[in-house]
């Protein structure tokens, strides 16, 4: 995969409604700028992010998937993010078997008060995916 400076990656972001979605709103209210490559999807909890949804995103043309949840211990549902924390490494090992770079999926914690951090995470991830280049479509996945 060749990195190209004018490649604009398409990224799907799964944002937990309580911390990260609110954090993303705070980034907006504070007018923090970040690349517009990520399309946000609101879920109630990062624990709702079924690995098959991530695979579908990659299959449907996303170059990267960002899963954002509350910091461990802060989950609105006590421990939903702990489940995600365990699922994501397993998902990554599956990705590897599909020949997809596991770096295309990233799990991060962003709290409702971390607007700056939200922008920073999106920026970093966008640049990382930009460097990885476009994701080859795998039609049969999901």
């Amino acid at each position, binding site marked *: 995969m060749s990195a190209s400076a004018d490649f604009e990656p398409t990224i799907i972001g799964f944002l937990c409604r309580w911390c990260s*979605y609110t954090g993303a*709103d705070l980034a*907006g209210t504070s007018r923090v700028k970040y690349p517009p490559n990520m399309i946000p999807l609101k879920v109630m909890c990062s*624990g*709702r992010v079924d690995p098959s*949804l991530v695979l579908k995103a990659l299959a449907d043309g996303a170059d990267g998937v960002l899963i954002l949840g509350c910091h461990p211990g*802060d989950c609105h*549902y006590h421990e939903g993010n702990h489940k995600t924390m365990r699922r994501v490494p397993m998902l990554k090992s599956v990705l590897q078997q599909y020949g997809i770079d596991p770096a295309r999926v990233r799990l991060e914690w962003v*709290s409702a008060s971390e607007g700056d951090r939200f922008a920073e995470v999106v920026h970093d991830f966008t640049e990382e995916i930009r460097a990885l280049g476009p994701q080859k479509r795998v039609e049969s996945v999901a």
Partner: protein
Amino acid sequence: MDTSKGNGHGASSNGEIRVGVYVCHCGTNIAATVDVAEVVRFAEGLPNVAVAKDYQFMCSEPGQELIQQDITEHKLNRVVVAACSPLMHEPTFRRACAEAGLNPFLFQMANIREQCSWVTTDKPRATEKAKHIVRAAVSRVALHAELQVREVPVNERVLIIGGGIAGIEAALQIADAGKPVILVEREPSIGGRMATFDKTFPTLDCAACILTPKMVSAGQHRNIDIRSYAEVASVSGHVGQFQVSIRRNRRYVDDKKCNGCGLCYQECPAIVSPKSRKVSIEGQPYFVGSYAEGGEARKVTIRQGDRERRKPIKDTPTGDCIFCGKCATACSEVVGAHAIVLRRDESAEAGKQRSLEFNGNCIGCGACVRECPTGALTVTDAQDRQVLHHEMMLGPNKAIRVPTLQAVPNVPFIDEETCIHFRNGGCGHCAEVCPQEAISYDMEEAIEEVEVGSILVATGFDTIDLAPMVQYGWGRYDNVISGLEFEILCHASGSTGGKILKADGTPPKSVAILHCIGSRDEHYHEHCSRVCCMYSLKFAHLVREKVECDVYEFYIDIRAGGKGYEEFYKRLMREDVTFIRGKAAEVTNWPMSPEEEGKLVVKAEDTLLGQIRRVPVDMVILSPALQAREGAQTLAQTLGIGCGGEGFFLERHPKLAPVQTAADGVYVAGACQSPKDIPDSVAQGAAAAANILSLIDKGTFSIEPVVAVIDETLCGGCRTCINMCPYSALSADEERNVAVCESALCKGCGTCVATCPAGAIQQQGYTDAQIRAELEGALGRLAASSAE
């Protein structure tokens, strides 16, 4: 697809999906960065879209009417509004839909403001992102199903955590409205920080005079149940119906029997912050213990029948121990301290067979000295400090005590660390003198379960720990004290009776007040603690009022934003207080000139003079930063609310919902949300009370129907989901071998949905099909098949 069933709403009886898309300009908030007209054109071309329009302010009344008209005119059965965050206006548009006869859950919001126009500078790219977001919403909304909100009844009882001024204010407001309140306070008395203040800024009225009446009314109110010396152990349930466990700490005094007479603390021989005493035998120091002033030790010995000091035994030179063992007997049997033990060693040579053994149980009472017939035992003060600023307290400083004499409830507690009984099993004096027999040394911690409908958190603040901030010398130099210590020093009920004294018992001739200790400092806290400027000015006034002395204020900026605050600052400038604009860098006792000899020297860069200054003073008062309470994070987790960057509880919206939190039915007030002064805390307490009363008055709370539903035809009974649920909403039906969901317990996190290997569980409002359709829309593969 199951979820698309039942959407035959309005005129589209043939099952046709008709979506209306409305793109908001939000003035220029969206329109400046997103080409709204372009987004509308794009939306018009999307599958199922019957109509697409833009409007200046969709949330305005004409904006909402536009949607309502179209629902009728265009026979819409789905609505998408592309505007601000759903956290902001989703309820507004859902209501608008409902008023037009459309089920409110057939609506979807596309956030193109907070997460698009406000965060992007490049207009074409922002427009492109907005299109993706709108397409995702259109794709998803086609699969929305009609849902019904759940109405849960609201229990009238309110739990207030924290009995400071904010909590008391809220409790009184709610109780006056006739609703029952449980006020849980960690300390033995309500009153909080304010109860330790002498005067309040800027009016200089006495804190106790304005607070005590409120404390008393709270204590006597028939609708307020105070649980002092108690903590919230756990919280379960949801808005309207919370189950709360309250842990009542071991007070050792039965609050039902105690009548607050105070005999126990008058008679208690153990002083909390006593002067230390050194007990020496034959001039050899053995013990350092703390002793009670006022002859309590003597009272103990007299009570036990020892009336007079024994005469020295003849022919024994005074000062020699004769190993008679009187001291050991007095210590163990009379006092109960067991600090001296007489050992008899039979195997040793005659004359040497007895010895005294010492341990660390000494309480410095002096009973042994009174018993000693030879004068071999002596007792002297171990230190010469007269005033112990760090250990001062209001009210009686005994092991059994009330925090202040105005305590509410007026029920003492026993401090295990100081109490002789808990140190060595002796004494027991308080239990003997108590006329009500209220004291019980074997009281156990009790857990009380209560049910409430709403919770107010008003736990207040902590001040930053000054001990690690060695540059300011707190804990190293006797006369460096913190703001809260000064409050007690200055307080009429404090150990010095309100006299401002140095550690040696003399009044200071010069005092420095250091602002921003740990506040506005990137090494500690970035935030401004808001109250320090004003209370530091108050301190300056109090010092000048009580002692003839020079006062220096070392400040970065004076922040006097409040009613009457600037005027107070002006007044202080006229009162001959020296203001030095510079943050103090260090407090040292190292003299560099004769006038600095024996003084504390404050070093600071005077930014108005542009030079480093050294100011020698007798006493330094530090204004430590206000920070979140220790344990705030744990409480936040217990309640399902969040903490901000500095650890203070997070409100739902900093401007528009300042006392609500992310958890429905849980509110915050006072300094636990951010540093606040008394007027602001009271205002928030009252605001929270109004919020809670409106919830109670309505009687029910609508809960979004975002819950898990199980398709029993798909469920294989593997039970993987059951352990995943943090609320025990899922259980196994043994007979039918399927999982069942108790929707009243389900909070809708969706963890079980992601777990189910059979895809048998769906989350209403977030079904797999809906999220997959949203994904396809977001990524541009708006498959026609998924929209059916």
